[in-house]
């Protein structure tokens, strides 16, 4: 196993940041840790990168214990913390050179690993990192984390605050890296990114809600979800919440995702009910669950 976490718990003063977390990541896997801010993702990353010590439980990374063998882990993993953590006043090239030197290597030595990413930022190599756009910074940070050819790569919310185009490119890069035998643990608050991982763990309030492939997580959603829309969104939501048979009512873009707690639910009844509540243009259609639906159902 590339990463193995067994019964890890961690508390700060009053707050329980992590409660009894266990999971394993196979070599070469792209594993996603999906959860909102404050779910405990960063704490878990810091424990695995040897920056924090857990109160309970144990963990190994690349076969090394995170407490006893912390020095070995530090030279064999790459870590990209949540905040933009490069030297703003150093140029792209100087940043990369610096991180290469402190890991005892050179850019040339591992160039083929970062080549795909580096060519995109190379035109700006003499620009100070602080003057790069969000997407560029993120690419540079990834290069810096990869420069010593780590076995395991930890990416803590790499796509937060980055626009959709850069996000897409970033995930494409991760997919390519995976083919070079690097195990990747990535965290994100965006549920739509979950589908891009091999396996994911849904995490909230320091607890893991479920671990599986994104496909089976959605497949296991217990109910039929209906897309509902009408002329007035707010009235629609209030009416649905007042409907005695409702199981869940969540606005979902231009629709409301509705589930009913009856097995023999007939959408026509609902249309009738909604129209009796002065709503018009009512539409109801079946739809499939998303990771977000599952997350909300589990967190409920």
């Amino acid at each position, binding site marked *: 196993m590339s990463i193995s976490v067994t019964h890890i718990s961690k508390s700060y003063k009053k707050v329980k940041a992590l409660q009894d977390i266990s999971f394993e990541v196979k070599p070469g896997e792209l594993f996603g840790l999906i*959860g*909102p*801010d*404050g*779910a405990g993702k960063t704490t878990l990353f810091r424990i695995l990168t040897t920056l924090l010590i857990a109160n309970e439980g144990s963990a190994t990374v690349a076969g090394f214990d995170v407490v006893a063998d912390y020095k070995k882990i530090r030279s064999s993993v790459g870590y990209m913390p949540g905040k933009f953590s490069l030297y703003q006043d150093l140029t792209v090239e100087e940043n990369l050179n610096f991180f290469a030197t402190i890991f005892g290597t050179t850019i040339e030595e591992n160039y083929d690993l970062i080549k795909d990413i580096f060519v995109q930022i190379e035109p700006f190599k003499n620009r100070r990192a602080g003057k790069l*756009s*969000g*997407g560029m910074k993120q690419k540079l940070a990834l290069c810096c984390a990869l420069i010593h050819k780590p076995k395991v790569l930890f990416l803590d919310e790499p796509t*937060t*605050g*980055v*626009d*959709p*185009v*850069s996000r*897409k490119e970033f995930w494409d890069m991760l997919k390519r890296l995976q083919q070079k035998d690097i195990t990747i643990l990535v965290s994100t*608050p*965006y*549920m*739509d990114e979950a589908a891009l991982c091999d396996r994911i763990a849904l995490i*909230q309030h320091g607890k893991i809600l479920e671990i599986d492939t994104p496909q089976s997580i959605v497949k296991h959603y217990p109910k039929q979800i209906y897309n509902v829309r009408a002329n*007035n*969104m*707010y*009235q629609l*939501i209030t009416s649905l919440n007042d409907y005695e048979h409702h199981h869940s009512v*969540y*606005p*979902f*873009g*231009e629709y409301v995702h509705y589930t009913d707690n009856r097995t023999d639910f007939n959408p026509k009844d609902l249309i009738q009910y909604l129209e009796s509540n002065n709503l018009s243009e009512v539409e109801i259609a079946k739809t499939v669950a998303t990771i*977000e639906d599952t*997350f*909300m159902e589990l*967190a*409920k």
Partner: protein
Amino acid sequence: MNNNKVIQVEGLTKMFGYFTAVNAITFDVEKGEIFGFLGANGAGKTTAMKMLIGISNPNSGKAKVAGFDVFTHAEDIKKNIGYMSQKFALYDDLTVKENITFFGGIYGLSRKRIKEKSAVLIEELELEKVANKLVGSLPLGWKQKLSFSVSLLHDPKIVFLDEPTGGVDPITRRQFWEMIYKAADQGTTVFVTTHYMDEAEYCDRVSIMVNGKIEALDTPKKLKEQFKAETMNDVFLKLARG
């Protein structure tokens, strides 16, 4: 002037030196509408919004917000709008009540009115138990909701939201959108700037800015049809890649 149009923008332009940050944008927003203002980092959406809320002067073009001209009546605009951003929300070292009182005071609400308002607000958000606790100790989702309510304290005609729900858990996020729908239903116009495309799906209409220009403006549904895309994210990717 059509009273239903609370934001009217025509050919609004902002230059920084030779760089055109906002290039002759034109759009209207109606009363009670939830309007999504989308764009990548650096596309010019922040600059455009700063002009609309009266803290930056345009170089050319026309714009009226809440019935006031951005060139001549910037101060009146400020009185009639609310603003909430994820970065600056509330003071962490003040309690819930103190925050409400403070922001009520800024917008010139009378003491009595602040008292009434905060009682209603605390009840609606079910914050009775934490009313005297420091805002810093509340979960992120609660802060967001409180912060939104505070931006509505002075009953503004328009509320500007800057990436309001990034990073919030899915359930709280939905509660947040329910609050937005409610405000819109009561006639407040909601202007959302964001680069999270899933936030865009919730808006009545969205505009997408690329390199200082508005390249698309319609309902999410029609945009998706027009670009033959499944999600707003795909619409955006197609637009940005040209």
